[in-house]
């Protein structure tokens, strides 16, 4: 079947098997390997991307279900050479250790700030409950998201 979607601002149409998962579509068909596959069982959040602006675990969605949607992956956040405020905040606050969960963490955090622009620390922790960091680097991740919320450029966009 054919699926068409806008990925990071550019539209594309591909012929895919109905059973193709969105995460495999993004990595293998669109060649965007920034989205990681962690647990592959909908638990860890490493594969989080934005579909029509909302965080989604792309291992639990068919490419076919994203037909017509606007998809944003970690590659789509930066504006040329300048990092997205959320990426900048993760760098500044060292919100990563091994980095594997980072793309999903950043995407989940962007979605969170869209829904709650000025979250409390508790809201950040709850808002990221779908993303696991096996290095347990949560402290700095939370600090990064709180800092991003205060960034002038608006990290939820």
């Amino acid at each position, binding site marked *: 079947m054919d699926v068409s979607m806008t990925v990071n601002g550019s539209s594309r149409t591909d012929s895919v098997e*109905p*059973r193709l998962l969105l995460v495999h579509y993004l990595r293998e068909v669109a060649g965007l390997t920034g989205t990681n596959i962690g647990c592959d069982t909908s638990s860890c959040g490493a594969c989080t991307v934005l579909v029509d602006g909302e965080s989604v675990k792309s291992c639990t969605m068919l490419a076919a279900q994203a037909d017509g949607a606007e998809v944003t992956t970690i590659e789509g956040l930066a504006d040329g050479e300048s990092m997205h405020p959320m990426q900048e905040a993760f760098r500044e606050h060292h919100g990563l250790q091994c980095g594997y969960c980072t793309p999903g963490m950043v995407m*989940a955090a962007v979605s969170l700030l869209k829904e709650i622009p000025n979250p409390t620390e508790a809201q950040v922790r709850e808002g990221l409950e*779908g993303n696991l960091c096996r290095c347990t680097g949560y402290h700095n991740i939370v600090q990064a998201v709180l800092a991003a919320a205060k960034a002038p450029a608006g990290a939820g966009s």
Partner: protein
Amino acid sequence: MIPAPFEYRRATSVEEALRMLGDGGEDAKLLAGGHSLLPLMKLRLAAPSMLVDIGRLRDLSYVRDTGDTIAIGALTRHRDVETDPLVAEHAPILAHVAGQVGDPQVRHRGTIGGSIAHGDPASDLPAATLALGATFEVVAPGGAKRSIPAADFFRGFLETALAPAEILTEIVVPKVTGAGWSFQKFNRRAQDWAIVGVAAVRNGSTGIGLVNMGSTPLRATAVEEALAGGASVQEAASHAADGLDPPSDLNASPEYRAHLARVLVRRALEEAAGSSRS
């Protein structure tokens, strides 16, 4: 993990979905948010020959004030139930429970209808609909409609009163504006399913739904009857596991679940009494 091959159809109306389901025969399945079905398909515990995607039926995504009740379209996502002002006012327990399902990513995709139609004893929303005394509106091929009370809906493990070719279209919830309520979800890690959960609504009489205490979402009828007969909260809660056969898994033995149910029902009844505005 990759699901077994299937044919994919996308429906643009309920009528079309019913037709497609009919064409697909016994092995065709509806796909709503996909957050119960796709994980099962990836594990190859389910291998439908056809998926009829109803995820785009936005006209089944709504919350409406219908007088004494509120009507919620089956395709309404957990996130939308969680944040809807009508639900917050007239059935606040449902908004709260929707916000306890999984994590934000799950709530952006999963639907209330999918959660109910799946009938998982470990799921949260079915227990809330039992406590609220909700009714489910269903449409069959040819357009015949019927209403099924939540209390008659859950039949066996992942088995409901829905016939294979029927579609759940709407959840009708009696308004319990100002009523006391509580939802006790006991788990060990953020995002997890409940090891045991209890939903209680106190609106004159008390309705209680149990999560993960048997092969289906359940009503705590022994507790409801004890309360109706004038028992104290303490006494009524001691009946929380009466006649039930709770599951055993890595998280808990049946005995531990029975203990949890008694403790959580007591806490739920105490909180519901305290939070009542009537």
